[in-house]
């Protein structure tokens, strides 16, 4: 059974407590004629127990007192007085009161324990996440840094023994490592922007054609071995959305595809616009994703089992974060005969001004 944490305002809780006890008393009043006043006591007790599952301790105590009072006044003979005639009734009233109190306090305590357990679990999760971050970070930042330090050391100290080819190769390694370092830092900055919760899309009119070609050009500058082809309807309208975020989304997806698919894989970028929704599909004919891991790939720091080194597991979670920041969605599926397809859908205003005659 799930115990509500009681996010309801305390004043409202008192009102709820009061109303429900009165309601239960009213029901008791109706049936007291043929069921007897002892049954009414059970009805009231059940009511207090139920209330203690949802409300704070003070409103529950109010319910316990109030119901005891009501039972005494309206139901214990002589009715409509606070007097109790028999010893049996006096004992019962006392027990009623104790049961109601114990009930309230016990339920409240259980809820406290649950709350503490939940907080502890949350804390554990944060620690776990933090450790994953640190592990991934120290690996992903230290590897390129080691390369740079190692290569520059060799260049400085063994300069005489190095052939020109060796030297050229070492400089190439430094360059690659710095590029990788820069990319990881970029990912981390994007992630912390998303995590800060202050991220607001800055919407402006975008030429999707221009944007996609630009991103593809940037990706192709990384000397990729795959072939990217672009397919955009020339009549696609202008969309009003955050250019920077959309660029980052497409860049990360293409970067992912170029890093994890074999050479000569074909990557397609398709953009379509319909009824105020921009749809971008990025698919490849690589090896696709293991079906049981698809649901996890957008999670922060998640990396496929057996994935090669290099990558923080942040790229795709940034894609999801940015798509959602713009009110959109991203999904992943495997396609036949082989390959993976990412589909991004972003709702956005469109403008067909493009098709007007210009002057």
């Amino acid at each position, binding site marked *: 059974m799930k115990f509500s944490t009681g996010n309801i305002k305390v004043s409202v809780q008192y009102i709820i407590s009061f109303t429900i006890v009165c309601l239960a008393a009213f029901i008791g009043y109706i049936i007291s004629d043929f069921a007897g006043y002892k049954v009414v006591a059970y009805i009231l007790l059940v009511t207090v127990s139920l209330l203690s599952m949802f409300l704070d301790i003070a409103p529950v105590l109010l319910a316990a007192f109030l119901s005891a009072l009501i039972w005494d006044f309206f139901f214990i003979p002589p009715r409509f007085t606070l007097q109790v005639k028999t010893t049996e009734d006096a004992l019962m009233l006392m027990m009623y009161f104790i049961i109601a109190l114990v009930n309230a306090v016990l339920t409240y305590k259980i809820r406290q324990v649950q709350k503490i357990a939940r907080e502890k679990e949350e804390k554990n999760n944060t620690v776990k996440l933090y450790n994953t971050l640190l592990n991934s970070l120290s690996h992903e930042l230290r590897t390129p840094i080691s390369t740079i330090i190692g290569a520059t050391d060799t260049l400085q100290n063994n300069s005489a023994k190095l052939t020109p080819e060796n030297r050229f190769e070492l400089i190439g390694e430094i360059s690659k490592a710095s590029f990788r370092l820069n990319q990881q830092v970029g990912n981390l900055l994007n992630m912390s922007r998303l995590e800060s919760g202050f991220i607001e899309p800055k919407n402006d009119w*975008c030429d999707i054609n221009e944007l996609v070609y630009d991103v593809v050009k940037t990706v192709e500058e990384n000397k990729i071995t795959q072939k990217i082809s672009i397919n955009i309807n020339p009549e696609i309208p202008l969309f009003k959305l955050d250019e920077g975020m959309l660029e980052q989304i497409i860049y990360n997806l293409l970067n992912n595809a170029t890093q994890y698919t074999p050479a000569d894989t074909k990557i397609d970028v398709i953009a379509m616009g319909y009824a105020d929704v921009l749809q971008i599909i990025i698919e490849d004919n690589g090896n696709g994703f293991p079906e049981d891991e698809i649901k996890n790939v957008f999670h922060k720091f998640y990396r496929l089992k057996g994935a090669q080194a290099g990558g923080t597991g942040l790229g795709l979670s940034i894609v999801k974060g940015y798509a959602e920041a713009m009110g959109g969605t991203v999904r992943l599926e495997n396609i036949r005969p082989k390959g993976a397809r990412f589909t991004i859908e972003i709702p956005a205003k469109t403008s067909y001004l493009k098709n007007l005659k210009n002057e």
Partner: protein
Amino acid sequence: MNKAVILVIDDEAQIRKLLEIALQSNDYTVNQASNAKDGVILAANHPPDMIILDLGLPDEDGHSVLKKLREWYTNPIIILSVQSDEEDIIKALDNGANDYLVKPFRTGELLARIRSTLRTALSEEANPVINCKDLQIDLAARTIKKKNELVKLTATEYHLLTLFVKNEGKVLTHHYLLREVWGPGFINQSQYLRVFIAQLRKKIENDPNRPEFIVTESGVGYRFVNGE
């Protein structure tokens, strides 16, 4: 031939060293300052042909240094910044910077920007006929030729193109272009700009999807590149 003098204002010694080596090996004379105060004094005492200014200086906000310099200094200023935030870049360009580069940058890219900025600055008394690869623009006759064939531009397209050509190599922000071509009331109507840039590219670029002349500066504006 006189060597062009470039003043580098940056608080990071490593960046200054890197720029010194890169610039000197390309025949520029380099002056250096590590903070805003020294930089402004050095610029006043020995006016350089160009200033490379880092926006993140320890003693003063880079934007205000830029404004201060622009009160009297008319030669080009190129901004270096670790801030890739578009608003920051746009602000610097609107405050009179000729160009900007985000750190980390490629030295090759910086040298290309320096060359084109200095060239534009030196050729003020512009030749009315400008040749860029297979594109010929005659500002006096108001004609555009692509591969020796006359290209018909609308008045707006022509206006846009001349703005680009006169500011070769310089990033023109969306707001600047909208204000100059359509007027101050249109600075938020970026859809016009998108449409006309696309049309202009169709007429003057070999492949409008992979433009050589009108290059996109994502989130900031456009730059006209005279293919070197």
